């Protein structure tokens, strides 16, 4: 289960990060990039909470 969800997270991560490079190279249109990013986002937030642990440090200070 853990490995499966990690693979889904990885695919989702790639769906957000890779299509924009293909758009830059002129191999993909923007609408497809946006749809893939949207699917990747959904996949990331569904799969990642199942396997990702909490940060070793919980910082309560504001950041900029």
């Amino acid at each position: 289960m853990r490995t499966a969800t990690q693979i889904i997270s990885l695919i989702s991560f790639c769906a957000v990060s890779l299509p924009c490079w293909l758009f830059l190279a002129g191999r993909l249109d923007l609408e497809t990039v946006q749809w893939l990013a949207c699917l990747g986002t959904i996949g990331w937030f569904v799969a990642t909470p199942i396997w990702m642990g909490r940060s070793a440090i919980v910082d309560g200070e504001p950041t900029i």
Partner: protein
Amino acid sequence: MTEEAPTSSGEFEREAVPESALLGSGKFWGMYAGEHAAGTEFMIGPLFLAAGASLQDLILGLLLGNLLAVLTWRYLVTPIAVAKRLTLYYQLERIAGGSLVKFYNVISGLLFCFLAGAMITVSATAIGVPFNIAFDVPPAMLGLSNPAFTLLVVLVGGVIAAVAAGGYERVARVANIAAPWMIVVFAACGIVSLAQLEVSSFASLWEGTFWTDAIAFVRAKEAAAGKPPTVFGFGQIVIFAWLCNGAMHFGMADLTIFRFARNPASGWAPAIGMFLGHYMAWIAAGLLLAALIKLQPAATLNATGEVTANPGLLAYEALGWTGIACVVIAGWTTANPTIYRAGLAFQGVLPRSSPVVMTLFAGAVATIAGAFPNLSAKLLGFVGTYGTVLGPMGAVIFVDFYLMRKFGLRDEYALHSKTSINSAVLIAWLLPVVVGLYLIFVQGVFAAYAVIPCWFACGALYLLLSKFVQRPTT
């Protein structure tokens, strides 16, 4: 990304961190990786372009400024953190006294509220996109946007405050999960913008014609509005990048984090946050505005005809709904702990009050601040002011740690004299800050320029005044 129990910065509040709780450098790199991908990055990046910064100055200036920030964390904060292993607040209490720390806490709480207000505004710009609610920035500093946007800010602020009142841990968990995704969305926004700007090679990127065209558009609109052209040079970029987190490094707020560090080398860890959040993300966000100016110039203009950064619209034009989600989540996950922390600061002054009520109060202040769009539109100045006010307290800690004994004075004087207000600290802090605020608000000095002079003045005054204030202690 670890399964071990997290170490909260709220642990060991009034004692040194024990050996058993110390953490290796990897944990700090992990934490800082997502630490500076905040909602404000979507606003700060475009503001560089709107202020007329050249692309070459931005690329080199941010590189140098962020490097200086990392060096400050490594060599100013971490040595003291690993030597004393105390929180900023407890260390200040031992030096300055409990009542003075409460006063400092309220001031920092109010500043946190304004910072959270800017994040609420940024989130509202994104939620407004699907509802076609425009983000109008009025000319007056204390002017409101259109009624629909103001109502949206109230709703967003209300939700964020309510969630913050429920505690910080759950939001920290969401922020932890979202951090890698947010960073990659920032990068994707920048790459899509480069494609929209028809940048096809490194040479055309470095030449930056698309950027100079965008700045020419900004300048033309400023001239049409009867305003002098804004200039944001290399020096300003370096100083801003170095000192925008002045409260965390020069102000020593991150002592609270690095007290858990097993060795001082952990002090290099902020580099990952700086170069992802304050380098890549700022440049990517700046490219978003350049792309929108090229594709839809009319969409970048406010009611007075000047260029305004609308973070939600910028991200939407690049990555669609993912862009909107990123702006909302980046704003929410950073506004939330900020409001929570401000609530704790207010509760410190009224210990019998409910933490929930105080957090809601902080949320209300932040929401009111967020309703004034000029706060986020002038974020470059606000962040410098934030460092000018909170940064100098770090000089007190620095002098107390390194110099007091060398000059024959008592370190941690409030602890040993059992005083609740160390007047040497109070005067040494307020005097340079008041002068700094005068220079910023009356003389128009760029706010980040005031941080380091105020820091040195505060440290020198603290040493000098301690000579007169200190009495023999047992």
